[in-house]
């Protein structure tokens, strides 16, 4: 909480113009303490970070400095030079910018301020963008990508010369991604245009506010921080875990068992927002709810793959309060105002305490009223996780991810953007880039390699000098070598890489899409999923059960399926891995039978049963069980480190087990556990110390084994693709270009193979490995775990499966078994052919 004396002090200094005071009085409001405090800091010329819960009036706080300043500005006389943009507002979502335009327009109009506010997003028509360049508004609401485009324009310096403030909304969500890296570089550029530029960051609660404070200001001198205002409190949310009458399943993610109880809650409340973690869960829950929707309550579905028009309809209905419930994925996570939600239901475990707090913030968008939320665990481990998350929320614990160093691919994009704007000196740009927090530790040789990459690809074989995109001139300045480069840059700006997806279009059953093309587009589905379907397969999408009819060019044709059961499950596998913080909480809970009392009886029983049959791991131990089943031998480990880290661990362990002669056949990983099965008796091998478990789990697996496995892995290829697109090595595919066919586009997989075998130390491969280690593989988390469990491995060799192992054993067969052995599949197919044709 802000301390009162300090506030009073600043209150005296703060200047809130008369019309504002009048407006507050008319509304019967008074400015909130943090709004005044923020205004005072801004008026003193400082940058500031405001951390506040939803509903605290963050938006108004963020704009007060601009509005008061603009209110006091003398009117522009005819003939006077036009004034540039005064305030830039940047949000991660287009929709949020539009929302703010509406919310900010109201007080501006009521106070009678001579202030123009406009949005500029990817959807803004070209003529309006053109006009904005000539007559800019006072306040421009935009996205990180648009900022990148604006600073790459030749007149950028002049365009921003009147800029005073940059307001960054939802900063906590922006900074953790590559978009954040690009934005931090954009800010550094703006600061070089306008040295006195002030930033105002608006954020939800985060674990490390100082990281954000540094992010907001120049890191020259190093360690500089923006001022900080923290608004705590608001009413404590009322959160409960559904204590179901039904049996909580061992495994799975559907929470189908709880549908009637969820429906009951919807009936008892005005508007219920139902959050799930993945699109497939959303589809399933929506279907299940309509199955029991005897009162035909208006229940809608909202996720990012649905057709835009469909989403807008749902959002509108939501705003008008005509819906009783809406099933949504993370698309609604961020701070958009949606009508009067009085209940948030979270289906499936929230995977992170911070995410839970964010989502619950959606209910009762007023700070002083308690939000009400119910958690619905989908399986028994999720009961533990929900319990831990719930305790964490009450404790105000935060587990937002730590910030990572800025990506080199993003830097490459920025360097080209700078060159498109104006010629630059490498020395000056290097210093500028290092003022951005994610790039403070960037060294000069790496920076020079990035420039070299932008210029000619940075290859050891100097073959492309004559095709350079930027060139070093005699005056020491780097310039774009031709205007076409700038054009290309504009088409490829940004760090959001879309997964290849196809339109899903309705046709008549059995038509294969050849005859009728008139059907409605339902949305988009990833190509990778559609590739596994065959004609006649049924699956769930857009709240319907659909029959797959075929693919034609970039469209997937579907018809209504006669039954209501989808044959092909879509495995979206929990999008977010379990956070380190929650994982630890779950381990602590397992270790403390006292805390089981707060768990539903059936779950507590399950744990007691485990203690009886095997053992429960101590909080810092790693439990490993081995047991035979069928004609296989199983190893189940319980690290609780999240799916990504487990997947990496699984890959590495199977390699080692293979070398030790255990003949492993496959593995599956969940957020909680890892199961490996083999032909040899691993339990016996461990007891004979051939190999010992300590040796098997030795940290050295992160050395050569990791390198060797990574080199050929599809994970790395996927990461490389993103780096190649972001860095501008290859161009993004744009709508309408898809038809050019596969043989025209050079696939990044092929480029990867060639580059890896000819120049393994190329800067883009370096960037790829760094990305994969932090993102897809969670190597650092695995490393922490391996060091934590040294000397703390508990091995239980059992006669049969333990209660704790049941959930992961149930996942076998339901989840794709990861591996690289595509050739085995080809072998199966070829053998089938040979059998059928009688050649064998």
């Amino acid at each position, binding site marked *: 909480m802000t301390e009162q004396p300090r506030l009073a002090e600043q209150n005296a200094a703060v200047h809130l113009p008369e019309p504002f005071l009048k407006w507050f009085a008319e509304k019967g409001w008074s400015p909130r303490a943090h709004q005044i405090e923020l205004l005072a800091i801004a008026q003193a010329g400082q940058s500031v970070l405001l951390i506040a819960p939803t509903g605290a009036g963050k938006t108004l706080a963020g704009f007060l400095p601009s509005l008061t300043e603009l209110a006091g500005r003398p009117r522009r006389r005819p003939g006077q030079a036009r004034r540039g943009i005064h305030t830039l507002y940047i949000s991660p979502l287009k929709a949020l910018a539009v929302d703010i335009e509406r919310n900010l327009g109201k007080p501006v109009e009521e106070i009678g301020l001579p202030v123009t506010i406009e949005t500029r997003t990817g959807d803004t028509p070209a003529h309006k963008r053109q006009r904005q360049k000539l007559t800019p508004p006072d306040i421009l609401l935009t996205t990180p990508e648009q900022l990148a485009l604006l600073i790459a324009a030749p007149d950028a310096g002049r365009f921003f010369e009147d800029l005073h403030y940059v307001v960054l909304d939802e900063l906590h969500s922006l900074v953790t991604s590559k978009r954040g890296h690009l934005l931090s570089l954009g800010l550094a550029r703006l600061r070089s245009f306008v040295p006195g530029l002030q930033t105002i960051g608006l954020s939800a609660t985060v674990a490390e506010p100082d990281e954000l404070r540094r992010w907001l200001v120049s890191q020259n001198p190093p360690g500089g921080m923006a001022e900080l205002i923290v608004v705590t409190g608001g009413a404590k949310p009322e959160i409960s875990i559904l204590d179901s009458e039904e049996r909580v399943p061992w495994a799975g993610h559907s929470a189908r068992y709880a549908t009637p109880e969820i429906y009951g809650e919807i009936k008892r409340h005005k508007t219920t927002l139902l959050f799930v973690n993945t699109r497939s869960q959303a589809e399933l829950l929506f279907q299940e709810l309509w199955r029991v929707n005897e009162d035909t309550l208006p229940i809608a579905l909202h996720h990012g793959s649905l057709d835009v028009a469909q989403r807008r309809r749902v959002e509108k209905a939501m705003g008008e309060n005509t819906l009783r419930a809406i099933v949504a994925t993370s698309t609604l996570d961020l701070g958009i105002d949606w009508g009067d939600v009085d209940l948030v239901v979270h289906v499936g475990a929230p995977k992170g305490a911070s995410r839970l707090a964010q989502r619950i913030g959606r209910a009762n968008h007023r700070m002083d009223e308690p939000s009400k939320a119910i958690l619905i665990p989908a399986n028994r481990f999720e009961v533990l996780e929900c319990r831990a998350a719930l305790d964490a929320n009450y404790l105000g614990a935060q587990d937002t991810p730590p910030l990572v160093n800025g990506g080199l691919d993003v830097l490459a994009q920025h360097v080209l953007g700078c060159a498109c704007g104006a010629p630059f000196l490498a020395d000056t740009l290097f210093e500028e880039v290092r003022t951005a927090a994610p790039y403070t530790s960037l060294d000069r040789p790496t920076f020079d390699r990035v420039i070299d990459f932008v210029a*000619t690809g940075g290859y050891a074989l100097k073959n492309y000098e004559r095709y350079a995109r930027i060139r070093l001139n005699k005056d020491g300045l780097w310039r774009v070598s031709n205007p076409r480069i700038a054009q290309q840059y504009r088409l490829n700006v940004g760090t959001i890489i879309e997964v290849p997806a196809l339109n899903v279009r309705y046709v008549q059953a059995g038509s294969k899409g050849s005859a009728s093309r008139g059907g409605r587009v339902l949305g988009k589905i990833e190509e990778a999923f559609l590739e596994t379907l065959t004609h006649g397969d049924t699956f769930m999408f857009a709240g319907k059960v659909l029959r797959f009819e075929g693919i034609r060019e970039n469209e997937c044709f579907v018809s209504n399926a006669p039954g209501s059961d989808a044959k092909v499950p879509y495995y979206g596998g929990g999008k977010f891995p379990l956070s380190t913080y929650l994982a630890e909480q779950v381990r602590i809970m397992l270790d403390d039978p006292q805390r089981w009392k707060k768990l539903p009886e059936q779950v507590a029983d399950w744990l007691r049963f485990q203690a009886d049959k095997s053992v429960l791991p101590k909080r810092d131990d790693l439990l490993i069980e081995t047991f035979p089943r069928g004609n296989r031998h199983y190893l189940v480990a319980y690290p609780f480190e999240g799916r990504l880290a487990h997947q990496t661990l699984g890959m590495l362990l199977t390699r080692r087990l293979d070398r030790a002669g255990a003949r492993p056949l496959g593995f599956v990983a969940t957020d909680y556990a890892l199961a490996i099965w083999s032909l040899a008796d691993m339990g016996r091998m461990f007891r004979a110390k051939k190999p010992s478990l300590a040796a098997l789990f030795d940290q050295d697996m992160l050395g050569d084994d990791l390198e060797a496995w990574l080199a050929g892995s599809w994970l790395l290829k996927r990461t490389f693709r993103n780096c190649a697109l972001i860095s501008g090595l*290859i161009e993004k595919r744009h709508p309408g270009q898809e038809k050019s066919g596969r043989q025209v586009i050079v696939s990044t997989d092929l480029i990867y193979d060639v580059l890896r075998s000819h120049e393994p130390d190329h800067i883009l491969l370096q960037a790829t490995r760094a990305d994969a280690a932090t993102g897809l593989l969670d190597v650092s988390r695995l490393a922490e775990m391996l060091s934590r469990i040294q000397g703390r491995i508990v091995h239980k060799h059992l006669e049969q499966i333990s209660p704790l192992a049941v959930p992961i054993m149930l996942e076998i067969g339901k989840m794709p078994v990861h591996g690289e052995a595509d050739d085995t599949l*080809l072998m199966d197919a070829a053998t089938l052919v040979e059998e059928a044709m009688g050649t064998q």
Partner: protein
Amino acid sequence: MTRVLATTLPLAGADSIGIAGERAICDRRGVLYFPELRLLTVSDLHLEKGSSLARRGTLIPPYDTGATLLRLQAVIADYQPAIVISLGDSFHDGGGAARMHSSFRERLEGLMAGRDWFWVAGNHDPDAPADLPGETVRELAIGALVFRHEPSAVRVEGEISGHLHPCARIVQQGRSVRRRCFAGDGGRMIMPAFGAYTGSLNVLDRAYAGLFRRETLMAYMLGAERIFAISRSMLRPG
């Protein structure tokens, strides 16, 4: 035509098949070898595709020519063919041969030395490659076989062509596997593209309509260790 009775057993991982009565070895590396003729054919090398794109500002690694030639070198070392036919689109564009790095040119000339080498004209490289030996031809007939770049619209028995970059896809256990392939129906054969940066087009695509007898179409998919012969009924579009 000279008939040489050299080694006639396929190498490990290669499949022996018949095309219009001629025996051919489908090699998993994407080349076709006729042992009786000591003839090796390879299609769509697309040399200098990297530099071709670099000219337009896409600076992909300049190692494709080197990588493609290394693979070709390995194949030639194994089979020691008397005749090599490069079935068109040997260079990604008309200026490709002239742009080639001197070290790559030397490697290529080394491969060509001591054998008959034919450059079949392709749509990307209709003219003879600059300053390189070998004979440039529109098409070539040897015994019952006809070698040309683009498959002709009417069915020709014994036609070996390229151009379309065939690949095939199967789905097994909920997973999809796509590989380059030879596509043949016993009468004609379309070769996979050999170049390091060449993409591929599914044999079930419309571009192949009418080219094959449906009943006997086989895709010989390129595996890491061997060729996999897959019949049409197992193939998936896309």
